[in-house]
């Protein structure tokens, strides 16, 4: 289940890419889900746990993948109990956030209204109000009732 909380909260990592650079595990990178996320969003190939092939930058280290993908990998694999700021992710990450939320209980923190319009069968629990939304339209409607950003 995907859970969304807007605004400043305790236990949230505001800039997940920095946290990722200092905490990621090699095996996270070669997991099929990370390989797919890096391919889809960064258009890059995972060569090994420590090498990525980028069409723009050439061979790069894991620390040079996009901030959005770093945040997604943390959402998928980090088990520290921290909540990651999904405002570090572009709207092209929205589908993967929803996907990770289907595979596990995932709480994300938002400081802007992320556009989930391209996510089919979108569902999330809005923690600020306690309402379960069953579509993007319901989500957008509910954000009207939430002042925190």
């Amino acid at each position, binding site marked *: 289940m995907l859970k969304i909380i807007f605004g400043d909260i305790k236990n949230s990592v505001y800039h997940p890419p920095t946290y990722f650079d200092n905490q990621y595990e090699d095996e996270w990178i070669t997991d099929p889900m990370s390989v797919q996320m890096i391919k889809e969003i960064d258009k890059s190939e995972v060569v090994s746990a420590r090498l990525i092939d980028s069409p723009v930058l050439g061979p790069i280290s894991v620390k040079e993948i*996009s901030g959005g993908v770093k945040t997604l990998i943390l959402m998928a694999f980090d088990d520290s109990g921290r909540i990651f700021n999904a405002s570090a992710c572009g709207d092209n990450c929205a589908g993967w956030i929803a996907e990770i939320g289907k595979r596990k209980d995932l709480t994300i923190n938002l400081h802007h209204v992320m556009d989930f319009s391209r996510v089919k069968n979108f569902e999330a629990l809005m923690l600020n109000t306690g309402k379960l939304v069953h579509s993007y339209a319901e989500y957008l409607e509910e954000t009207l009732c939430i002042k925190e950003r």
Partner: protein
Amino acid sequence: MKGKYHIIVQNKRLRYEFDIRRNLTIIRGDSATGKTTLINMLDSAFSLGEGSGIEVVCEKVCRTLRGKDWNFLLPQIHDQIIFLDEESSFVKSKEFAALARKSDNYYVIITREDLPNLPYSVDEIYGIHTSGKYHDLRRTYNEMYRIYQASEFSADRKPERIVVEDSNAGFEFFKKTGEEAGIACESANGKSNLRNVIAKAAVKNLLAIADGAAIGSEMNELYQYMMLHPEVRCYLPESFEWIILKSGLIDGRIVQQILENPEAYIESREYFSWERYFSFLLTEQSKDTYLQYSKNKLNENYLHDKEKRAILKVMNGIKFL
């Protein structure tokens, strides 16, 4: 600072090329478009100079600002273009807004947050896209594009209801003009209420009018709402005063020259947003004429048929009559 600045940032593999024309520019958009890479290149170039292997071409110094002591550094920086990455959460603080307002720098801020303390324009919210590889096949070229295009959310139809961000002269004008055309009009009493008032209106054909010069912080939510509710459209001129100036009602060649190239005239330290400058310009230029302008109360002469038609003519694609 005033003026438009062309900026090139490049190394062997990447080239960014874009123009900055106002004190506040926002870069956002999808992940993996090169926003952080741009910041990192500017950071290295500023710290290490030519020895970084990065070339920055710009009439003004381009630099980054990071870290906890930003508020000590910022007052010492003058006449520079400052790039701020999304890790810098201080950009949403009132303290940053207050320091930026007093400064003579331009700011380019990478963030997806709305930043309601900063009056940035709908026209200065950009994404980055790759325009391809040209002469040098090893180098990728990146440009900025405007995220919000007016054509996407304007409508060539007579609205059933109008919601105006403003509550002063602009609102009075649209309210009275709307009444004559059988269009209900209400004020949102400020940009932060706009989306809520629109959502409550529940009509088939609604037009929201707001000052484009400072509506930037509302655009993400407003745009998503409009995409989901095509019955709601927006008209976002720089400001109501800009419409009047553009209409030609106010004499003076200088006014039209300024409107063609406002960035050359608007000093950012005096006017945090262009909307305030246009208000000043109209008040100044209409002084002691029959169209003497006051923001607080609409001069009735603007509602005379000739004047009203001249103003409405500026509003391309919006049908009132």
